[in-house]
């Protein structure tokens, strides 16, 4: 079920009440309840998806037990390989089979040969890319002896299927989340209030920002050939807001929901559009995925050790694989490659770790230099996002070609739409709030905490009313669900 749906609005309070008034009294009962609630949540899309997640859970629980039970390196590696093959095999088959097949067929056609093959006609289970990586991190950590294999299958099943973050992350490490299933934390009022606040902000980002931008983005990407460069630029910028609002909004709702149940999930977005360079952007965007690739792919490949060629190779691999993780389309691979091209120069001159603190930390306004850096980085990410959103490479190049054109200074007809101005004002308000709250884990974390209660509540009511009045409620799914 979608976070922005009536189904979830009913599910959450019922689950909350059952959890705190009954389930949380005993550990085993609590974990079993979480598994049941999570399977209900996940099965709401399609009950057939449950068999796959159950299968992954059983395989990885068992593989980790086997790894743990022996000190023999070869045996440990074999069991790890089983886990990798099963998980990546399932993911690869369901997600990438048709992509490889289509490209294979095209390659044959290029050489003048006909090749026919049946495509796989399956529905890609929602969230498979996320929970697969989550379970893999468990078996890898057990293999590396960073973590003891759990003997509690219910706790493990709860870790794998934990509904707040099951379908679109954050991709939680077992070292962080699994231990939270070994004990019950008591209800903490402030944590629950904080969770509600984060859910509120996540809903604002998704329903108001992302879904309002979506309309203009769809228009720009559907009618690319007929529009001025200025309109296409607006479409690309709006997509940057759409994907951020959508994805980070989901993460906020996930993290906030977890807090309602006393669980702590990792921050997944740290105000990436206030980054001063691409390296900083990638430390702030989809943190759980980029750190996963860093720890489980980049470092094992050698990381930044070795000669320049070696380092460039490793960076390219990470970004290309990261792009490919997002979808079975050359556009995602090119998107990853472009980001690699932007990142590598910084790495080579050792300037990839310049900006570790948030921009203008402790200050209200940024310097002109910082503003310039932020805008340039934003523009570069916008250009890359075109590939992410386009249907195919040809479409992406057409879009960019149409955008980088003398008509980029023409009056964009999209501005005749009165709703466009409302959306633009909302984007400005949103950006200001994000700016003011950039030193917190999420924008609303600290804003208003020192205000008189009346003003603080007025702000919350204001946000709720903005969501109700300006939000779009046509049940738009979250973009990252397709991954």
């Amino acid at each position, binding site marked *: 079920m979608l976070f922005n749906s009536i189904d979830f609005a009913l599910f959450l309070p019922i689950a909350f009440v059952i959890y705190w008034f009954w389930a949380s009294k005993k550990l085993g009962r609590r974990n079993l309840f979480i598994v049941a609630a999570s399977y209900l949540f996940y099965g709401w899309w399609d009950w057939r998806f449950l068999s796959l997640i159950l299968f992954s859970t059983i395989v990885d629980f068992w593989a980790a037990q086997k790894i743990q039970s022996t000190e023999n390196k070869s045996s440990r590696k074999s069991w790890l390989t089983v886990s990798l093959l099963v998980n990546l095999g399932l993911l690869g088959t369901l997600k990438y089979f048709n992509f490889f097949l289509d490209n294979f067929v095209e390659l044959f056609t290029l050489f003048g040969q006909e090749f026919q093959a049946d495509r796989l006609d399956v529905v890609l289970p929602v969230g498979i890319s996320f929970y697969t990586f989550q379970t893999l991190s468990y078996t890898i950590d057990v293999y590396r002896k960073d973590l003891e294999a759990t003997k509690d299958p219910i706790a493990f099943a709860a870790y794998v299927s934990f509904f707040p973050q099951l379908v679109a992350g954050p991709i939680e490490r077992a070292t962080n989340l699994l231990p939270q299933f070994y004990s019950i934390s008591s209800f903490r009022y402030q944590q629950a209030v904080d969770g509600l606040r984060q859910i509120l902000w996540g809903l604002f980002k998704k329903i108001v920002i992302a879904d309002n931008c979506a309309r203009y983005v769809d228009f720009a990407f559907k009618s690319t050939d007929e529009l001025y460069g200025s309109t296409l630029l607006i479409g690309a910028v709006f997509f940057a807001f759409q994907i951020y609002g959508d994805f980070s909004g989901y993460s906020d709702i996930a993290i906030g929901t977890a807090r309602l149940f006393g669980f702590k999930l990792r921050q997944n977005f740290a105000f990436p559009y206030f980054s001063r360079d691409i390296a900083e952007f990638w430390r702030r965007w989809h943190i759980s995925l980029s750190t996963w690739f860093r720890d489980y792919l980049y470092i094992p490949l050698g990381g930044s050790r070795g000669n320049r060629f070696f380092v460039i190779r490793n960076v390219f691999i990470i970004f290309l694989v990261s792009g490919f993780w997002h979808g079975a389309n050359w556009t995602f691979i090119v998107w990853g490659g472009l980001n690699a091209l932007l990142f590598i120069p910084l790495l080579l001159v050792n300037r990839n770790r310049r900006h570790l603190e948030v921009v203008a930390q402790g200050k209200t306004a940024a310097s002109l230099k910082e503003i310039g850096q932020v805008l340039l980085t934003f523009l570069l990410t916008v250009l890359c996002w075109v590939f992410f959103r386009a249907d195919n490479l040809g479409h992406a190049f057409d879009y960019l070609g149409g955008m980088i054109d003398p008509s980029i200074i023409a009056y964009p007809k999209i501005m005749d739409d009165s709703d466009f101005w409302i959306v633009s004002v909302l984007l400005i308000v949103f950006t200001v709030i994000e700016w003011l709250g950039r030193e917190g884990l999420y924008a609303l974390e600290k804003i208003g905490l020192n205000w008189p209660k009346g003003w603080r*509540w007025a702000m919350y*009511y204001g946000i709720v009313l903005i969501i*109700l009045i300006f939000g779009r409620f046509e049940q738009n799914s979250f973009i990252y669900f397709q991954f």
Partner: protein
Amino acid sequence: MQPRSFISRTMLLGAPVFLLFVAVNYFGDASLLFEIGYEEKMAEIILEGEMVENFYDFDERIFQKEVISNLDETPEVVVLGSSRGMLINTFTLDSVYTLMNNSVSGASVEDLIALYQTYRLNDHRPGRVILSFEPWTLNRNNEQGRWKSLKGEYQSFFDPNNYEPPGIPWDKYAQLFSPSYFQASLYQLIDGNGSRDPKRAKDPYNETNTKMPDGSLVYYDEYREAAPDYVDQLIRKYMEGDIYSIENFKELDAELRSQYEQLVDTLLAEEMELVIYLEPYHPIMLKEASENYPIVFEAERWLKKMAADRSLRVIGSFDHTKLDFDADDFYDAMHLKQSAVTELIQRNAPIFAP
């Protein structure tokens, strides 16, 4: 602090917003869901032989049921279709017959069945029926659920002993909690149209749509008089989103085909003279349908074969080029102008045996 306190505090603080939300939905009532007797008022005016204007969202199915149930005389011709059939009026048939147009927006097979059954349940047998066929008629995923207002009538067509009177309209009450309905109702409260009560019209051309005494429709002035460029713009904007009722049209649904055939066969068995009516798409929409929704033409082919097998007359096509119409003949992506509807019918006149 305990969860109990957290819940009670949250509910207390959320209550004003919740109450405001429900109140706006109820008092703004964008689609007049909570207005009682609206359809009855409209039907009363029509049945008195007068025109009615200033009507807004109403339950068209309940309105038609009110009209049919209170007819003094059985009309000689009945039109059962969607909004694309609503412009067929007494004059398009040269006033030869008494006519009642019972078309409802987005009519599905279930609607056509329910409407005809309503005639049967009220012991009316019209003799001649113009039955529409739409691009979405055989689409299981057409998202047309409005026929459920006449669910009892629909079900009793298949099982005459099983007429279930309408139950509690839970769908309607669910709108009290709908965020989309909140937005529409808030707009209605702030910028609404003043009184939305239907009123007797002095002539057919008004600032709002007008229902004629024969049940047909006359569009409002601005809509009828829109310039072709503006119409083109509207169509292109319309095509940015989902196309009306033909999204996810994967196959000609077997059950819907069977039900449509059953309706046709019942009409023929009851000795109705039957004509099937198809309206075309606007040229821009036709191009879109040809490229991305070719199944609608497969549906048309099915329909024409079904009709030929029964020696039934079919008037029209989804393809405007077959009817020699162009963009100027359309109000929008899928509604012909009155003049074109009249021309289409009269080209095929007499459509019923004299």
